[in-house]
């Protein structure tokens, strides 16, 4: 019996959860359908985009109104943030994410969802982190995890948050109708250009990786393909909030484009301007370098910092045979994790560690929907904001990416004095969140023993160490949660 499996591919077994009789089928069956999510009354993605736009528009007006006083401006700006719930909503979205991870009947799916939200990392810009990245992850990434990889890439690419963050709306074809018209009208200033940002990330981070050997010209050509994909301007009153992303051929670079030697939209086989991006993504996603890059990344995340080639090849084959069907790929990764229990030294990233601790120990850290909404939007959220502070302090806030390549999951990233201090201090803190019925003197030892028995292959050794000294309970928890077996799996 390989008990580490539940933590390797999910968040461990909860205190009241039964051990599945067939762990592999239990895990693999979780990828066929998208689990429901407890939205806790959160606004939808389009509602949040609207809120963010209004917040920004009001902020712009404040710069004019308070141009004489920096202090008054700052006060007004902060009041504006409170009014629009900037800190409130990112905490709410974190709650939704964590509640799903801990309480889901498909925890392996949830863990896989975390992989993909990191893969399609969106960098914060003007309130994206607060208002849009959480809803983007659950409405765009999550909803496309049962189709093909190519479809997921398409939806992630034309998602509002991604387009906005990588400035694709600023990318204007040099021969687009927009430029032509400006030139014809005599008011062309020569200040428009293609923006290569998004095109480069689509190649480098989301699909084929630099190993594919694309050139700078390939990047430029892809940015031509992508020109015209825009987010609507936040100040437009007529914005249709339900569809904040548009393809506007007015800005699109016409004519043919050549990527990896293949010509798109040539005279003989024209492709509708809007569909060109999808045609390119389809071609990128069937490349072997794409399969290898994404598969290696999955195996690194779930199995080991240095996964062996046989494991990677196994998943690549599943990908190829199924034409990139995500559930098939996900099941293949899970099977490899199950069949290779000797790879049990993957150092967990802080958010995953924290969620496993919460689930295994049945903590009451998260707020209920009712207490979450006890908020007046005049003051800063306090209890609600704790989760955001925690994720920031652990160095692993899942909406606050430092780089578009997301968080790196190898252990060098996370083993350093400060990173270890974070786990030490929050492990100590955990004691305050154990339900009171479990901290009573006569049940505490049994409570811990049951958690350890369910989730750790060397349960006897851990419990023996833990109860050897007559330590106080919070110290026992600190020590337990920082054991190598808990930090790694």
């Amino acid at each position, binding site marked *: 019996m390989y008990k580490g499996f539940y933590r390797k591919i999910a968040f461990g077994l909860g205190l009241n959860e039964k051990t599945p009789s067939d762990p592999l089928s239990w895990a693999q069956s979780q990828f066929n359908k998208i689990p429901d999510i407890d939205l806790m009354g959160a606004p939808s993605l389009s509602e949040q985009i609207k809120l963010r736009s209004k917040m920004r528009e009001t902020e712009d007006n404040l710069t004019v109104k308070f141009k004489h006083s920096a202090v008054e401006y700052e006060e007004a700006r902060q009041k504006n943030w409170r009014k629009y719930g900037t800190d409130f909503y990112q905490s709410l979205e974190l709650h939704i994410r964590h509640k799903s991870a801990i309480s889901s009947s498909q925890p392996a799916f949830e863990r896989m969802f975390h992989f993909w939200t990191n893969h399609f990392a969106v960098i914060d810009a003007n309130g994206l982190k607060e208002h849009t990245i959480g809803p983007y992850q659950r409405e765009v990434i999550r909803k496309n995890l049962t189709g093909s990889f190519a479809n997921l890439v398409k939806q992630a690419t034309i998602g509002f948050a991604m387009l906005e963050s990588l400035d694709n709306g600023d990318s204007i074809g040099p021969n687009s109708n927009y430029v032509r018209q400006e030139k014809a009208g005599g008011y062309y200033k020569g200040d428009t250009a293609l923006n290569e940002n998004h095109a480069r990330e689509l190649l480098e981070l989301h699909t084929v990786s630099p190993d594919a050997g694309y050139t700078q010209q390939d990047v430029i050509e892809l940015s031509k393909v992508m020109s015209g994909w825009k987010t609507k301007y936040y100040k437009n009153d007529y914005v249709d909030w339900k569809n904040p992303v548009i393809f506007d051929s007015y800005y699109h670079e016409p004519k043919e484009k050549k990527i990896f030697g293949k010509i798109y939209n040539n005279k003989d086989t024209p492709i509708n301007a809007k569909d060109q991006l999808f045609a390119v993504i389809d071609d990128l996603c069937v490349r072997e370098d794409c399969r290898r890059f994404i598969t290696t990344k999955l195996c690194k995340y779930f199995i080991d910092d240095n996964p062996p080639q046989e494991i990677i090849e196994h998943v690549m084959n599943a990908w190829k045979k199924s034409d990139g069907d995500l559930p098939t790929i996900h099941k293949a990764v899970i099977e490899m994790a199950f069949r290779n229990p000797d790879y049990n030294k993957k150092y967990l990233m802080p958010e995953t560690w924290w969620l496993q601790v919460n689930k295994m120990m049945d903590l009451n850290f998260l707020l209920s929907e009712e207490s979450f909404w006890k908020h007046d939007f005049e003051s800063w959220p306090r209890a609600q904001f704790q989760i955001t502070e925690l994720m920031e302090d652990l160095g692993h806030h899942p909406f606050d990416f430092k780089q578009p390549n997301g968080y790196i999951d190898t*252990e060098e990233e996370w083993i*350093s004095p400060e990173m270890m201090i974070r786990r030490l201090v929050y492990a100590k803190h955990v004691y305050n969140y154990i339900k009171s019925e479990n901290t009573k003197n006569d049940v505490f030892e049994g409570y811990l023993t049951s958690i350890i028995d369910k989730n750790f292959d060397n349960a006897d050794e851990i419990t023996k160490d833990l109860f050897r000294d007559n330590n106080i309970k919070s110290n026992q928890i600190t020590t337990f949660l920082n054991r190598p077996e808990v930090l790694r799996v």
Partner: protein
Amino acid sequence: MNCTRRSFLKGGLATLFFSGMPLPGLTNSKKKKNIIVIMLRGGMDGLTAVPVISDPSLNKLRKNIIIEDVLKLNTDFALHPKLQTFHELFENQQAAVVHATSIPYTGRSHFEGQDLMETGSLTPYASKTGWLGRGLNLTNNSLDGLALALPMPLILRGSQNNNNFFPSRKKVPAGKILSEIKSIYEAKGESELAKNLDLIINRPLSMLVNDKNLLTLSRVAAQTLRSENGPNVAVFDIEGFDTHSAQGDIEGKHAEHLYEVDTVVKTLQKNLKDAFEDTLILTVTEFGRTVSENSGRGTEHGYGSAILMAGGLLKKSQVYSDWPGLKKNNLFEGRDLQSTIDARSVYASAMATVFDLDFELIKRDVFWNEDVKDLSSQLFRT
């Protein structure tokens, strides 16, 4: 004067490239020397930090982001007004600039560029260790590194004795518990975890604060480096130089971040006290930015940038450059400031100076015998 390439060569700086006698092996200087690297992420615009004032084409290409009230360095270059401390140091022979320089990377991707500025390699993601870490490693681990950051930066990896400081608001558990956990790590063969926990257990008093703003980080770094047994290397990480829009002129995003750099330098100088004399502060960035502004009053990813240097180990105040010019045909790919000095030569020379190592050894073991030049005797007090 129109600032051309020729005028700078005439200024005597061509010698920069043709000297470089290797130092005679490991010297036995007793005095503790420090190197502090400030990483500027996002692509620092060298033309905003150190604008060329003798070339009118810069302002023509940047109508909306012109820097006024610059702090003059010489007839050709000036500093951004937010680099006040830096300017004072320059007047005091304790600051210098290397301009039109970059790591040899022209791919304009942040992730590749930042990987390379930290590894010192020519191939992205090919090295898992940083140039500073490998340099430290050559000192037989007699010297230590300190990162003022939560994640351990790649630039320091490769060395055995790295520490970091970026305090949590919450209190670290008592020493007794830490020792107990350490004994578990030792028993389980977890040497990395045990070693890092040991650093936590033995933290100096100066690190027992729980505030992580740049002022505190700079103060703690200086106090730690000042101590005779403290680390010799510190690394700061400042983000936000990727200004595709609203880059600003004397105010704005780029200016704010330059002010942060200036504040770090100021705090370091104040708290290093006498040790500032034996310290070298250097900036590192992944690339510069386009010479022309874009439609959003920002700039795009470019190539050549500038290195800001401060500290008593500098030879003198000077803007070192083999200035390539800003005319269209002088620009890299017709758009970016050209890089005429491999920034790695500056970093290799800095390590040779501070670590008292033979430059050739650094060239071979840190930079894979690639074409880095020894600029130690031109730039630094050796």
